[in-house]
């Protein structure tokens, strides 16, 4: 149990990040325990290897490439952006090929929309109109069927 506790603290012990009394306690245990001493040695090897891990040398031509890339970026940043120039004097209100104006007036659009709305509401309220309702000549077949069925059940309308 002590060994597992020591093992958890080993990297902190090796890197000297433990408090003094903890470090003393660890040192005492490591000196008396072969397994923990081997663990400490393995951690020291790892940290030593990381400390002396070699840096890759800068490749030849890197500076030149970086300078070229930076110069290109600066040139691109300073170049004037292409502008869209529309000459309104020659064609104040350009038209499409079918003769319609590109920008119809908002009032026309509103009037058209209102007309469509009015027609659709009228159709739904009044309907297309039934000619038999105004002539009053003969009752439709459906009405006579209803009358005959109620006569059979004894109710006189």
């Amino acid at each position: 149990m002590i060994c597992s506790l020591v093992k958890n603290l080993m990297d902190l012990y090796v890197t000297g990040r433990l408090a003094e009394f903890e470090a003393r306690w660890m040192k005492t245990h490591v000196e008396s325990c072969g397994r923990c001493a081997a663990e400490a040695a393995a951690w020291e090897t790892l940290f030593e290897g990381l400390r002396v891990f070699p840096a890759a040398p800068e490749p030849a031509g890197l500076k030149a490439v970086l300078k070229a890339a930076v110069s290109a970026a600066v040139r691109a940043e300073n170049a004037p952006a292409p502008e869209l120039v529309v000459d309104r004097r020659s064609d104040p209100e350009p038209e499409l090929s079918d003769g319609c104006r590109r920008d119809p007036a908002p009032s026309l659009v509103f009037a058209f929309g209102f007309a469509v709305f009015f027609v659709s509401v009228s159709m739904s309220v009044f309907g297309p109109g039934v000619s038999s309702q105004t002539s009053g000549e003969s009752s439709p077949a459906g009405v006579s069927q209803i009358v005959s069925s109620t006569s059979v059940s004894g109710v006189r309308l």
Partner: protein
Amino acid sequence: MGDIDKFIEQYSARAYAAAYRLTGNEADAWDLVQEAFLRALEKSDLYDPAFDFGGWLYRILFRVYLNRRRAQGRRREIPLEPACDGDSPGAGEPIAAREESPPAIAERNEAMARISGALDRLSDELRACIVLVDVEGRSYEEAAGILDWPVGSVSGRVFRARRLMREMLEPRG
């Protein structure tokens, strides 16, 4: 920032070394350094000349690295075996030590290759932390400043990264 050429002369080697440690190969390190310098140029209005340009560039480099990796959504290629074939940083770069015997040099190079392989197999965030803290010897606070993370996040990742590396370097069998 008219001194960018001067900064390239001064800091490109250091930036490349860090980029190589992070990416693990020359092509990606080259791209990373270039993007970091371009980003520095782009954000030059945020740079305060009272501070060290190298430190600022370093922060940009690490952030570009982490953002790129996050955006790409991929991990580095993981070798099936610990890298001993010279593809990793440090591998194949014999450390000349005049006072060491050839077997000692060979043993040392092998240890470097194993450490390099273990670093390669860490996730990007763990690798960034361990490079800053254990390879470059920075404090947790400095690493947190560079990565723009809380100190607790850095120390937690360093803790995990060390244990993972220790497991990877455990002798097999």
